[in-house]
């Protein structure tokens, strides 16, 4: 499943909406989108992953990349699918990011 990326900005929040599969071949595009979003110095970087069906280690590494590049930016996953949430937990990234649902 190809990956579509849609970046936007609302207030202090940079939002990157992702849809499809994030794997080794598509992760570089996500990284570029994250890089571009961080260049505007947002307080929050929100990755809307509700429509992401699979995320490989390459995708998770984009999060590490973002956190290392801008340690002060808060990183949030919006509505991750259960398998992605599980991977976040098992690898320990869960404690480094925020997970948000419908309410926010």
């Amino acid at each position, binding site marked *: 499943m190809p990956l579509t990326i849609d970046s936007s900005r609302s207030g202090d929040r940079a939002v990157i909406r992702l849809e499809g599969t994030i*794997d*080794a*071949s598509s*992760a570089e595009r996500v990284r570029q989108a994250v890089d571009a979003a961080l260049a505007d110095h947002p307080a929050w970087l929100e990755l809307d992953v509700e429509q992401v069906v699979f995320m*490989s*280690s*390459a995708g*998770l*590494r984009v999060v*590490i*990349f973002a*956190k*290392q590049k801008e340690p002060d930016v808060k990183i949030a996953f919006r509505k991750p699918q259960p398998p992605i949430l*599980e*991977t976040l*937990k*098992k*690898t*320990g*990234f869960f404690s*480094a990011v925020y997970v948000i649902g419908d309410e926010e």
Partner: protein
Amino acid sequence: MMEARIDVYATHEFGGYRFRHGKVLPFGATLVDGGVNFSVFSSAATSCALVLFEKGSGEPLVELDVPPEFRIGDVYSIMVFDLEIEDLEYGFRFDGPFEPHRGPRFDRNRIVADPYARAMGGRDTWRSEPDWSNGDAYVHRSRVVLDDFDWEGDRPLELRTTDLIVYELHVRGFTADPSSGVSAPGTYAGLREKIPYLKALGINCVELLPIFEFDEWENSRSHPATGEWLGNYWGYSTLGFFAPKAGYAATGSLAMDVDELKTLIKELHANGIEIILDVVFNHTAEGDHRGPTISFRGIDNATYYMLTPEGWYYNFSGCGNTFNCNNPVVRGLVVDCLRYWASEYHIDGFRFDLASILGRDPHGAPLANPPLLESLAYDPILSKCKLIAEAWDAGGLYQVGSFPAYGRWAEWNGKFRDNVRRFLKGEPGVIGDMAARVQGSPDLYADRGPGTSINFITAHDGFTLADLFAYNEKHNDANGEDNRDGSNDNDSWNCGTEGSTDDPGILALRLRLTKNAIAMLMFSQGIPMLVMGDEFGRTQNGNNNGYCHDSELSWVNWALAEKNAELLNFTRGCVALRQAVPMLRSPHFPNALGGDDRDADIDFVGTSGTGQDWAGWNTVLAYRLTERGREEGVPGDEMMVMFNMHWGDQYFGLQPPAGGGGWHVLVNTAMPAGGDVFRRLDAPAVEGPSFLAGPRSVVVLIAGFGS
């Protein structure tokens, strides 16, 4: 700022892959600007090719012959550009002579793994059945690893050696059982969920059974009678010294095993718990001449293995081959490996399996000054790491007390185990030895101190503590070897009947002996080591060699924590007392000349309170520990420790504490729950000038502070 560096351009191209002469160091696969650098040693090969795969694909992406001009000395290095490293697997194909009688065993038809592979494929989901039909295929494929983990300021803890309380555990067995209640049973992530339990227990160091990549399917078989799967559960058979066991990671199939393990280590450190790895450098998984060619054998057989003059494999490990650790090249690999784990994974120390082998020369003779052991002792990167030797091997070398230590190496103290076991059963003839064991074994380690002595009564290998007092004989039928395997010398005692029973008298005696064992561990000088589950009575049903069982037999049954809460509470109490009494953790032996204020002096006072009876038949030992004092006017701790291993009651005469305040009871294993262990602040006072200790009991008293 430089726009483009000119030293990383391709000079060659083949099959669409651009490459150039690589850097010879470091060995292995390393990320460089725009590519990956590969470097590998072989002194006897005539050619080398780098074989690249896409993960999961049977056919290689490309096979790049390393041009002759890329070899410097015996090292082939090649830098390849524009690789998708997340999905990359690689290996090498070497050509060279097959002349076993002279050493080399090259096989041009095989692809072999990188000795420096930072990660390995093939076994990334625990016990996922391999495809046996593809016979000789290259299975244990080398992978490239990213070093971008966010440690958030973590580094090894560097706890004082004598402050350690070690807990030996098997990553899978610790949480594999559903009773563990963790979300990812049997994994690094599962272990991470149990950190609060470890913290509450009070231990501050976990020693993990091997977590270097191994093949749980090695020599796997079905039990002839039960059909049960038997394999290599313990993991003492290394495939890759630099690669973590991927099957222990819940995320292994996502190739996130490195991150999951590092996350575990970071969180253990955040909770004040060190990590020691049990490392196996004495042999590899390639076995003898009948074994598979996975890596070393097909790269430089005569360098990596000890060979007889006829080219057969020496077998000092009992596992088919012997890693040639005092060859300078192999020694370099071992040092590189440990440096890698200490620096990249923040590992706090290493326990070396059958370490005496590391002190043998390439022909097997023990060396007086083994270069490898010396290198490790003085290594600048490992200088704060704990180095612990299992100071014997399967070739007959037994070096407890005489291991070449350079003032640096600690040892699993096998004599502590043997003496304490016999003492616990009430055997005569061991109180002289016990007097040394409780002091940290100055008879063995006079020039090194009590931090040398890893005191243990049980280990993964042998009976569990509960089984030590429930079985006279080993019961290894479940191993499918007709009960021939496993040690016959266990110094165990079943307390009256073999195995499980509901006889309340026998159960009470077993519990008391178990408490005695825990108390002896925690109140002796040196470093105590517990085995997972012993604190709440884990049993292997009398099996003293659980290496092949991945089942309830070898896993921790967490329901026992509730069932045997009395023992668990007692253990927690003793661990807490060890932490609360500094002189028990002194880096100097009792009565040491010089030393520090918080060192202890020891007097063996016996039952009279004035002198120990050292007669051979005596099974009662009592001593007094006196802390040398703290600052002016503040008295040091004083303790009375009484071991009555006799089957009758025993009166012990008490001399009053020098600092006043009277004696208070910390531990009395003759008492039931509630009276068996106290916190210092709650310790009840002793009335009168003597103490009546129950049959087969341990009593520990402490002087109150001026009250």
